[in-house]
């Protein structure tokens, strides 16, 4: 276990050093992030014109969801995207061989090798929005609500990671997964809005098939102190299943791996 922590530390300190070379990139990401946030809050505000509500969510509580989305988007940009979109290149160029030979778990190595520090401002900003908007909508922040919030964020992140990893791992067969990740990104954008704002059939899909609801709506309910315990329980089970499945799938995929270079 200690070896894994040490590895992460080494990976990320090298990542930090190499990214200092690209400061302009950092600035661009920052601008793009602010623009995206401004745009989505603007679009969200259009739903509330004329004193309307969005699927029984008030303006302030809907902003909590935007905050959670921004936070997860930051994590995606910092950790998931830089690492998991690389898997396809390892497969195509045959360099996956070297990863498999290392005396460390290959899924771990592939998932944490890089860390893009340009995602950090988004993570911090996302959390700030969550807390600010939660205060605005009158949340009392009991210790219990905070605890449930952290657990439900963890559930959301594990589900997000597993789905991304599953798609990336399928590159063992398909060698091109860029478009599949684009579909995923388009669908995940549905998480910007509360799940109760969708028609019934989409609510069902976004809760059970592609659990977008667990990514943003439920953590937002948690910090507002409205999350039902049985949903949290169900989320724990669902995220464990997703994670276990991603591991089994990776093991299965590796059995089919027929190196490209050797």
């Amino acid at each position, binding site marked *: 276990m200690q070896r894994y922590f040490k590895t992460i530390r080494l990976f990320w300190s090298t990542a930090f050093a190499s990214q200092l070379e690209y400061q*302009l990139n950092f600035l*661009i990401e920052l601008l*793009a992030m602010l*623009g*995206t946030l401004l745009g989505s809050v603007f679009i969200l505000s259009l739903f509330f014109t004329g004193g309307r509500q969005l699927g029984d969510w008030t303006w302030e509580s809907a902003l909590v969801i935007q905050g959670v989305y921004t936070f997860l988007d930051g994590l995606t940009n910092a950790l998931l995207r830089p690492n998991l979109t690389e898997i396809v290149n390892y497969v195509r160029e045959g360099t996956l061989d070297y990863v498999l030979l290392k005396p460390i778990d290959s899924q771990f190595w592939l998932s944490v090798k890089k860390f893009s520090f340009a995602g950090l401002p988004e993570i911090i900003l996302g959390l700030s929005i969550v807390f600010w908007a939660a205060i605005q909508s009158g949340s009392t922040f009991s210790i219990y609500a905070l605890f449930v919030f952290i657990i439900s964020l963890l559930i959301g992140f594990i589900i997000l990671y597993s789905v991304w990893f599953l798609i990336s791992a399928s590159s063992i067969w398909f060698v091109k997964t860029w478009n599949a990740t684009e579909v995923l990104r388009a669908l995940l954008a*549905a998480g910007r809005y509360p799940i109760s*704002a969708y028609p019934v059939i989409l609510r069902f899909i976004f809760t059970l098939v592609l659990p977008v609801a667990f990514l943003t709506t439920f953590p937002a309910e948690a910090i507002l102190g409205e999350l039902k315990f049985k949903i949290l329980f169900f989320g724990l089970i669902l995220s464990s299943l997703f994670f276990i499945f991603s591991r089994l799938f990776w093991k299965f995929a590796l059995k089919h791996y027929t190196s490209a270079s050797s």
Partner: protein
Amino acid sequence: MLEYRIEIALWALSGVLPFIMFSLWSQNDVGNSFGLNDTGLARYFLSAFLVRQFSVVWVVFSFEEDSLSGRLSPYLLQPLHPLFRYVASHLAEQATRLPFAIAIAITFFILNPSSFWLPSLPQLFLAYLSTHFAFTIAFLLQSLVAALCFWTEKSSALERLIFVPYLFLSGLLVPLSAFPSYVLKVAMLTPFPYLINFPAKILSGMPVDIFNGFLAQILWISILVPSVNILWKLGVKRYTAMGA
């Protein structure tokens, strides 16, 4: 291109965003506040989806890859401007996307039978023309960013700075008539509304100022063509043939 059928099907699917937005706007009854009933909303968003399928551009990503891997050098030696190579590959992929786009449109009509409509021939022609203009503007805008590849190695990161205003101002997420008037005024000064909103309005049969729309599209093209040309010429002088 026909080799990559799954790829293209997925690519067509990745355009689902207008449909997600449609379900939100119609479920929450917001359409009325900007003068569209459910049928109007459905037609608008299906049109927006179709327009995007035939105007989407990724030249900066192809170009960056070619530039970094040194494949650009032989292209530059050829007597044809390298950008035409990318134009051709975009047009080819648009053609292969047609059956998927039709399949998605049919599925949409089955799910929302009341929204079914067939645009008249002149409507279809004007929508076709304005979608091509939209593609041209989007292509030129991205080429402008692509030409920056000659200066920086990571110009695809700069593309985000075009994509963000495109996402919110083009009308992909909401018809522009929903914007408050002061936002609308600013938006109309940018090229983005002419990329989705204008062609989609023609296709869906919403009232639209056709003359001024086309005028603006042509104006943007005539500004962008010389700009791309100049930036490209300056860039080629700096080209150092990476990887070659």
